[in-house]
């Protein structure tokens, strides 16, 4: 159709969002609204969702520019807990650095870092109980670290080696541990959202006291599962914490493509009848306080909370991504909410419980610890060294019991392997 038949009407235009800065541009975030720390009110746990408007459009912040914890959300953690939080965050960053490098060295096929988002998973996990069930996306490895999960075990999974509990079946970083109350990560985005709500509903239906927490990125909120999950969570008042990690980028797409130009992600909660909090995701104390608040709301049967963690994905999406192709190189350094590790460190220093020397010493110590874990994991083999799991495990776990057609295919595969004479075949531990 041409416009000819409607010549007297104004022409419509299609709005296609565009990020403010592209490669070569100077990033300037001066128009990002950053409310002062301590200014946001702290509601009652039972408050109706409709009263969360200003919290869903504002931003809960605890740490101010001088490194002090201020306002009604300050969680009053002991210095030991604060130091532990910092330690986990530093460990996560060191782990990421080490594994990123391992991928570059060809020791594994793939890795994803959480750089700049360390507070989101670590501080939230510390505000949960150890047996609360977590449904992570692929960028919450901090949950495992904050639960003191074995770094060697995580690395074994990344290397798909003979120590890998997932038998080399999963892409690196798609961890799973029931013991760690960490749900099996799926490559399909947002599927964990309704699953977490279902888990929480089951816990409630059984009169349990455990709650669930789920994470997804802001990009994934566009999936239908997000809508389904919010609807179910609201309808049944499921004891669940719905975390949206708004790190501004979904691979190369800025948050505008998930709807961020028109509203906040926390504000979506209010429409579902869910309490919505928008918080400074680079402020570990804000993350802790909001999670603790939401956990209390869930534990007292007052329903779900959606927390938008406003943060920034400081590095590439994955080892397969080069962010310099689509965004300004200085975005991360210009980001107005700073670096979560540095901010927590500065807080500890400001209250006289930490200093630069101890921080540097800890950095070294943790780097050594991660390196040691890496050595231990690599003793179990790395991906490039071929097969580490018995070949016939390929058919295990499709069903509880192997049906005839899989048994036939298994026999076929073993015959092929015998025929091929491949050197790694069925040899325990590869070469």
């Amino acid at each position, binding site marked *: 159709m041409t416009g000819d038949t409607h010549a007297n009407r104004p022409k419509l235009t299609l709005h296609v969002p565009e990020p403010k800065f592209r490669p070569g541009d100077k990033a300037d975030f001066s128009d990002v609204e950053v409310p002062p720390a301590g200014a946001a009110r702290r509601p009652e746990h039972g408050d109706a969702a409709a009263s969360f408007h200003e919290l869903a459009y504002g931003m809960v912040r605890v740490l101010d520019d001088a490194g002090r914890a201020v306002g009604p959300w300050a969680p009053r953690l002991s210095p030991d807990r604060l130091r532990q939080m910092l330690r986990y965050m530093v460990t996560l960053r060191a782990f990421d650095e080490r594994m990123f490098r391992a991928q570059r060295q060809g020791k594994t096929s793939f890795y994803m870092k959480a750089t700049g988002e360390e507070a989101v998973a670590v501080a939230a996990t510390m505000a949960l109980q150890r047996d609360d*069930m977590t*449904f992570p996306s692929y960028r919450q490895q901090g949950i495992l670290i904050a639960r003191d999960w074995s770094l060697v075990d995580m690395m074994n999974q990344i290397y798909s080696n003979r120590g890998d*509990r*997932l*038998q080399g*079946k*999963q892409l690196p970083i*798609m961890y*799973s*541990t*029931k013991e760690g109350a960490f*749900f*099996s990560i*799926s*490559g*399909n985005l947002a*599927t964990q*959202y*309704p*699953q*977490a*709500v*279902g*888990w*929480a*509903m*089951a*816990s409630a*239906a*059984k009169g349990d006291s455990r709650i*669930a927490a789920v994470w997804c990125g802001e990009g994934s909120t566009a999936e*239908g*599962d997000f*809508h*389904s*999950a919010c*609807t*179910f969570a609201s*309808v049944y008042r499921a004891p669940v914490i719905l975390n949206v990690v708004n790190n501004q980028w979904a691979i190369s797409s800025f948050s505008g493509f998930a709807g961020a130009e028109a509203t906040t992600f926390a504000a979506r909660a209010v429409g579902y009848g869910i309490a919505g909090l928008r918080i400074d995701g680079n402020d570990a104390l804000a993350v802790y306080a909001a999670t603790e608040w939401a956990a209390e709301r869930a534990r007292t049967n007052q329903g779900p909370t959606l927390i938008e963690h406003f943060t920034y994905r400081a590095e590439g999406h994955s080892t397969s991504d080069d962010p310099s192709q689509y965004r300004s190189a200085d975005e991360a350094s210009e980001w107005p909410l700073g670096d979560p590790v540095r901010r927590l460190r500065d807080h500890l220093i400001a209250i006289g419980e930490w200093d630069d020397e101890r921080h540097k010493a800890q950095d070294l110590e943790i780097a050594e610890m991660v390196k040691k874990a890496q050595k231990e994991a690599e003793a179990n083999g790395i991906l490039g060294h071929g097969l580490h799991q018995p070949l016939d495990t390929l058919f*295990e*776990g*499709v*069903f*509880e019991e192997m*049906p*005839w*057609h899989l048994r036939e295919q298994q026999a076929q595969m073993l015959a092929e392997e015998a025929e091929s004479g491949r050197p790694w075949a069925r040899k325990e531990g590869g070469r």
Partner: protein
Amino acid sequence: MNMIQAINSAMDVMMARDADVVVMGEDVGYFGGVFRATAGLQKKFGKTRVFDTPITECGIIGVAVGMGAYGLRPVPEIQFADYIYPALDQLVSEAARLRYRSAGEFTAPITVRSPFGGGIFGGQTHSQSPEGIFTHVSGIKTVIPATPYDAKGLLIAAIEDNDPVLFFEPKRIYNGPFDGQWDGPAKSWAGHKAAQVPEGYYRIPLGKASIVREGGDVTILAYGTMVHVALAVVEAAGVDAEVIDLRTLVPLDIETIEASVKKTGRCMIVHEATRTAGFGAELSALVQERCFHHLEAPIERVTGFDTPYPHSLEWAYFPGPVRIGMALKKIMKD
């Protein structure tokens, strides 16, 4: 019992036996289901075990997977199989793979019940037979009963099974068997041998077919409504056919199929679903691979046409007595 009552009874029995069994879906609670399959269950077992859900199939299955991961044994209902597609991602990417991807740490012991199949003037979105989409997915079991007795025994086995099971219920035969004579009087299950359904617990193992008519000249493989249509055609034609009700498509009872075709030398496959890449293609390939030297005629597939399910032209589309009869003549002539 009719098939609805048998299905209702299976859930009743399992809910009483296992406190972890929960029933959920659109209209299944207070109202008892649009086909009455869950009637009375909420009143008996309470709202936390039998509950209505929002209209979101992806949510229903996703929530069921989460409940399964917690340790419950959910029996979600998808009101019509035609509406299972919004849940496809949760079924294919999640339920089917959870055990495999977590090396057995997490499982999805869910049973998805869904009315399926045509013959009821249901048009495009109340008649489909999507079983072939799911038999293609590793990690899911697919079960289709053809009688009230089987429906109860198979549903109990499905609920007890620790793997995700899709339980497709042929709604055309909820209230009585169907011989394909669409303009004839409706039959009820009353008086049918398979309508004698025990009140209590019993199970029919998954993966076992049922030979509903023994014969020596041709093997007919069918499931759901088509078992009854094929049987009626065979009786009317006076052909000594062996009619096998597959009951479970995955895992398939290959031994029964293989033994029968080797005995008869001929094989005909009947299903309502569209032809191309339907489950009949898999059956045909398996029979060809395993019984090639015993075959006296090409394998025949009698199926729905490769079109969306039509409304007014339903009986031209449906693989009824005429189409089955013509195929039967052809296969017997060869």
